[in-house]
């Protein structure tokens, strides 16, 4: 009786093992809007095939990485239910794509979201105004757009809905790093030499820890009362360098990274800025008020005891 059981167990385990070695694709074409398959059969892969009608043969070629779209990320993105041709000209259905499509005018966010009461809480108009103030826009007004940061095929809201701060930090920082760690995107916008982030932040101790726990925008934007995400990226001279702007009881993190959480919950367990504690411990910003008081009292009693003892020593001498 035992043997067949073991056999089953082994089969079962090896099945799982196979699953991990040859993962079954989680996305099949069905979950993408049908129309998109016609685009993603080429743009979803690093190679594509087309029929050369002159020669009558099928040709296989490489798709340049910049034209490859991560299907999974697209489906999960804010605009994942869209047809490609909701944003792109339907003429793209022909291949080779007609040359005039190069000049295609892309929508901007406010074309769809502007003045829509459903999206009022996002304050698109205020964000747009803030973006025009940002140093990125000022330095490359023609090239820098909302899409430069909000990848049209993968942008997904994190800060507002993501309970997990570390994921938000990772996501938001990757936005900046998509240029500041990748020359190919960066050099499209400037003649300036690429900036080595690790070097320019060498003054920041525990750099890796900081970059995992705070966002670039914490230091490079000014928190804005009405916006969850401040969009005015400032020139380097205005960046925050003062440690105590985060490492103190008036930590600016409460007005930026932890803004959403801090509106939801207040003091817990006597800690200052308690919401930070679910993810981080920030020296100077997370003090326990009970422990603070207790330590002051104990310290006072100690000094009092010593004072009294000293008095006795003096008078009983």
């Amino acid at each position, binding site marked *: 009786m035992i043997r067949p059981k073991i056999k089953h167990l082994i089969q079962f385990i090896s099945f799982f093992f196979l699953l991990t070695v040859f993962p079954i694709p989680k996305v099949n074409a069905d979950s993408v809007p049908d129309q998109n398959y016609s685009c993603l059969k080429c743009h979803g892969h690093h190679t594509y095939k087309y029929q050369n009608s002159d020669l009558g043969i099928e040709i296989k070629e490489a798709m340049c990485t910049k034209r490859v779209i991560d299907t999974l990320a697209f489906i999960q993105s804010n605009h994942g239910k869209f047809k490609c041709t909701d944003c792109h000209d339907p003429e793209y259905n022909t291949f080779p794509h007609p040359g005039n499509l190069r000049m295609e005018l892309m929508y901007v966010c406010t074309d769809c979201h502007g003045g829509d009461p459903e999206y009022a809480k996002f304050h698109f108009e205020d964000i747009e105004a803030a973006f025009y103030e940002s140093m990125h826009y000022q330095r490359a007004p023609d090239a820098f757009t909302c899409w430069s940061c909000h990848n049209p095929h993968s942008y997904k809201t994190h800060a507002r809905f993501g309970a997990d701060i570390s994921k938000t930090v990772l996501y938001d920082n990757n936005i900046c790093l998509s240029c500041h760690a990748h020359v190919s995107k960066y050099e499209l916008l400037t003649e300036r030499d690429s900036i080595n982030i690790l070097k320019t932040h060498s003054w920041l101790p525990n750099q890796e820890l900081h970059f995992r726990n705070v966002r670039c925008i914490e230091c490079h934007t000014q928190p804005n009362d009405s916006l969850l995400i401040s969009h005015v990226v400032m020139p380097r001279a205005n960046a925050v360098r003062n440690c105590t702007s985060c490492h103190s009881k008036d930590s600016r993190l409460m007005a930026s990274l932890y803004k959403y959480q801090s509106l939801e919950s207040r003091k817990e367990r006597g800690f200052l800025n308690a919401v930070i504690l679910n993810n981080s411990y920030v020296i100077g910003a997370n003090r326990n008020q009970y422990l603070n008081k207790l330590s002051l009292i104990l310290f006072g009693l*100690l000094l009092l005891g010593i004072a009294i003892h000293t008095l006795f020593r003096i008078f009983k001498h």
Partner: protein
Amino acid sequence: MTTEKLYLYPLWVRLWHWLNAIFFLTLLVTGISMQYSSPNSSFLISFEKSVQLHNICGILISINYLLFIIGNIFTTNGKFYKIQLKGLFNRLTKQIQFYLFGMFQHQNPPFPVSEKSKFNPLQKVSYVAAMYIGFPIIIISGWAMLFPELVPAVVLNTSGLLFTALFHVIFGFILSVFLIIHLYVCTFASPIVSNFKSMITGWHY
């Protein structure tokens, strides 16, 4: 009281001790500066400097602590830190009674300093507690914060660093209390500064 001279503090103990004192005080001041940092505090050390100094002194005091451990393993100084549990409670109460009452009535200390026992029971217990319990804990938690990637990120839905940091701060406080009592008790000799002199020259009078 004895009038003979005793050589109680060999050179390495004195060296260890004064280095330890310097590092500890720096750690204390910079630690407080970080814990109570604020954008406009001028009387404390700046946060950035504090972090640097605290890291450096933390590493140095750990190395110095190894000197203490090794010294006490390989020299006879270690025997002063051996606690005889039997009758300890009685000896402790005797010493406490002396500090609270006896010394005001000009009684002789119940456990005078001798070559055999450098410390009275209360000194012995507090030195052992500080050096063999407090120090390891504060050093380990300190190093954990120097390499925060080694600390589990989240424990019980709370930052793992929080527990490390709380431990570190609480033991920092306890050791500071030890330091103040230590300093005060060292003034019980007559003349008041003679214990401090001993720790410089090595000779106890």
